[in-house]
C-alpha cells in the first residue's frame, strides 16, 4: 500500500466481468469447439471402421467360397477297370509310386464317362485321378469291389456351381445337379497344397510355409541385431557427430522404399554372395534389413523411457553396466521393443516388392522344405493369382488374402500376449 504501483495500467484495469455477455459468448464458443472436436474424432473413427468393414466383408464374400469346392460323385467298378494293381505292393511307403504307374487317369476318365455320360471326363478336374489314388492308398480293399468316390469338379463346373460360370458350364452343372451327382465340400487341398495352374488344384500351404520361414529368418536376424544396436546407441555410445549421423541414417533407412531393399538384396545376397535364388533365407535377410531400423527406433524410445532411477539403483549396489542393461533396462524396455517389432514384422509380412526382386515370385508347386528351398510368400502368391486369367483364381485370391489376414492376426496376437506377459511379470 505504501509503495506506488509499478505501472499505471495495472491500477486502471477494469475488473473482469465473469457474468457478462462477452464472457458467456466465449464460454459457448469453447463448448462448441469441444463438441466439434469430439464429433470430428468420432467421424474419423467411424470412417476407418467403415473401410475395415468394407475390406473384411468384400474379402469374406469373395473368398469364403474359395475354401469350398464342388465334388461330383462317380461310381468306380475297380475289378473290371483296365488296371492291374497287386494289393500286396500297396503295403509300405511306396504306394503312391505303384499307383502312379497304374493307368489311373484313364480309369478315372472312363468311370466319369460311364457315370456322367459321354464327355463326363471333361466335367471332373484333370487331376481327379489323384483323389482316386488317395482313396485306394487309404483303403486298398475297394479294389475288390465297386465304390462311389467324390471327385473334384473341373474349374468350369466349380465356377458354375458358384454361379459365375459360362452359359455352357451352367447348363452342364444343372444337368449334373438334376442327376444328383454334385455336392459341396470343404476344399482341404486348398490348405495343404501349393501353387498349380488349375484353380481347382491350387493351395496356400506352400506360400504359407514360405511366409513362415521368411518371417522366422527375419525375426531371428533383425530382433537381436536391432535390440543390441538400440542398447548400444542408448547406453554406451557417446553423444557426438558420428552417433548423430548414425541416428539420422537409421531414421532414413526406416523410410526407404522397400523395392530398394529388394534391389540391394538382389545385388548383395544373390549376385555377390551367391545365395540360392527364391529362397526364404534371402527373403528373410532382405526383410531383416527393412525391419531392423524400425526395431532400433522403437527400441531406443523404449530404452529411453526406462526411469534413470532404476539405473542409479542398480549401479549404486555395484552392478556392472552390462548387468544394469540386461537385468534392469532391457526387461523394462522389452514390452516397448516388442511393440516396435510387431509393427516391423507385420510390415515385412505384407511386403511384396523386395521379394519380387529376389525371385520369390517364381511358380513353385511344392512347399519349401527349408530356408534354402525355392518358395514364395503369401502376399506374392496373392499378387500372382490376382494376375491369372482364369476366372477361378478370383476367389482363390480372396481366400489367400483371408489366410494372410489370419496369419497377421495370429502373429500379432502372439506378440501382444508375450508383451502383456512381460509387463505383468513384476
Amino acid at each position, binding site marked *: 500500500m505504501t509503495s506506488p504501483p509499478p505501472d499505471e495500467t495495472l491500477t486502471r484495469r477494469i475488473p473482469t466481468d465473469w457474468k457478462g455477455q462477452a464472457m458467456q459468448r466465449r464460454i459457448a464458443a469453447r463448448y462448441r469447439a469441444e463438441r466439434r472436436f469430439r464429433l470430428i474424432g468420432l467421424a474419423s473413427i467411424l470412417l476407418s471402421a467403415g473401410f475395415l468393414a468394407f475390406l473384411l466383408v468384400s474379402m469374406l464374400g469373395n473368398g469364403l467360397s474359395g475354401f469350398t469346392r464342388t465334388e461330383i460323385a462317380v461310381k468306380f467298378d475297380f475289378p473290371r477297370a483296365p488296371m492291374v494293381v497287386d494289393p500286396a505292393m500297396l503295403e509300405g511307403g511306396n504306394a503312391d509310386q505303384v499307383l502312379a504307374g497304374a493307368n489311373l487317369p484313364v480309369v478315372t476318365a472312363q468311370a466319369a464317362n460311364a457315370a456322367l455320360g459321354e464327355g463326363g471326363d471333361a466335367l471332373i478336374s484333370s487331376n481327379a485321378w489323384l483323389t482316386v489314388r488317395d482313396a485306394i492308398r487309404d483303403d486298398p480293399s475297394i479294389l475288390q469291389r465297386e465304390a462311389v468316390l467324390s471327385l473334384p469338379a473341373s474349374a468350369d463346373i466349380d465356377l458354375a456351381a458358384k454361379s459365375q460360370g459360362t452359359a455352357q458350364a451352367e447348363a452342364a452343372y444343372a444337368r449334373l445337379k438334376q442327376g444328383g451327382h454334385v455336392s459341396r465340400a470343404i476344399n482341404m487341398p486348398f490348405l495343404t497344397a501349393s501353387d498349380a495352374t488349375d484353380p481347382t488344384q491350387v493351395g496356400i500351404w506352400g506360400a504359407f510355409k514360405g511366409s513362415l520361414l521368411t518371417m522366422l529368418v527375419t525375426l531371428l536376424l533383425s530382433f537381436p541385431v536391432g535390440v543390441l544396436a538400440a542398447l548400444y546407441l542408448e547406453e554406451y555410445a557417446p553423444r557426438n557427430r558420428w552417433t548423430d549421423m548414425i541416428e539420422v541414417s537409421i531414421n532414413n533407412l526406416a523410410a526407404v522404399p522397400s523395392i530398394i531393399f529388394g534391389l540391394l538384396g538382389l545385388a548383395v545376397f544373390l549376385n555377390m554372395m551367391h545365395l540360392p535364388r527364391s529362397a526364404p533365407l534371402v527373403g528373410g535377410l532382405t526383410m531383416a534389413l527393412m525391419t531392423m531400423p524400425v526395431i532400433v527406433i522403437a527400441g531406443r524410445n523404449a530404452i529411453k523411457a526406462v526411469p534413470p532411477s532404476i*539405473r542409479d539403483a*542398480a549401479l*549404486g*549396489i555395484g552392478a556392472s553396466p552390462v548387468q544394469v542393461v540386461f537385468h534392469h533396462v532391457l526387461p523394462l524396455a522389452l514390452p516397448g521393443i516388442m511393440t516396435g517389432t510387431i509393427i516391423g514384422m507385420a510390415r515385412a509380412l505384407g511386403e511384396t516388392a523386395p521379394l519380387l526382386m529376389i525371385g520369390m515370385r517364381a511358380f513353385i508347386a511344392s512347399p519349401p522344405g527349408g530356408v534354402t528351398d525355392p518358395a514364395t510368400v503369401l502376399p506374392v502368391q496373392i499378387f500372382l493369382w490376382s494376375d491369372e486369367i482364369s476366372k477361378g483364381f478370383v476367389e482363390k485370391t480372396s481366400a489367400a488374402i483371408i489366410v494372410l489376414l489370419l496369419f497377421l492376426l495370429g502373429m500379432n496376437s502372439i506378440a501382444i500376449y508375450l508383451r502383456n506377459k512381460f509387463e505383468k511379470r513384476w
Partner: protein
Amino acid sequence: MTEQTTSSAPPKMAARHVNVFYGDKQAIRDVSIEIDNDHVIAFIGPSGCGKSTFLRTLNRMNDTVAGARVEGDITLDGENIYDPSMDVVQLRARVGMVFQKPNPFPKSIYDNIAYGPRIHGLANSKADLDVIVESALRRAGLWDEVKDRLKDSGTALSGGQQQRLCIGRAIAVEPEVILMDEPCSALDPIATAKIEELIHELRGRYAIAIVTHNMQQAARVSQRTAFFHLGTLVEYGVTSEIFTNPREDRTKDYITGRYG
C-alpha cells in the same frame, strides 16, 4: 550421543582437496572431509550448494554424468578410489547408496534384497540367500511388515517402506560405507522417524554420510555436520557445536533460517 573424535586409526573414507567440475563449471571447491564408522556425518546447505554432487563423487556415481571430472584424493581404507586400478563396480558395492526418491526395482521384495548378493556371489545356496535377505530386512526394520509377502512387488509398498527396502538392499551387500542422498525428503514424518531410528541403529556398523535439507534431522541423526555453500565447505565439525555455536556467520544464518 558420544563424541570422541580423537581416534588414531585412519578414517574409513577421506577426501582431501577435492574439486569437481561439470564441463567448465566448478561444482565443488577444495573440500576435505573424513567419514568413519563411529559417527554419522550430515551434509547440509542450500539447494545447489554441491552437497549431493560431493556425495556422488564418494562412490563415483558421477562417472555416469557426461563431462564430470574430479580432482584431488578420495580414499577408502587408504586406497584412492579414482585410481585406475580401482574397480568401480566393486567400489560401489563397498560404498552403497540410498537415493532421494525410493527406487526399488520392479521385482519382488525378496529379489530386491537378493539382487546385490546374487550379482556379487555372496550366497552359495538358496538357504544362504534366505538368511541374507532376512537379516538385511531385519536390519532395515522392515522384516515384520513384509515377512509374509516377500513375493509381492517392491513397488507395491508405501513410500517409507520402499525407502527402507532400498536401505535393506544397500546393506544386503555388506557395504563399508552407506551414502544417503536426502533419503527422507519424499516421506511423511512417521516414515522419516523410522528411517532416522534406522540410521541410529546402523551407526557403528557402517560409516554413514547423509545429505539432508532438514536442519532438525541433521541435528537428530548426525554426530558430525558439514555445511556446504556455493561449492565450498564452509564449516565442518561436531554437530552439537555447529548447531549451538557456529564459527562462521554463514553457517549461523543458514541454520537459523536466515537463508537457504
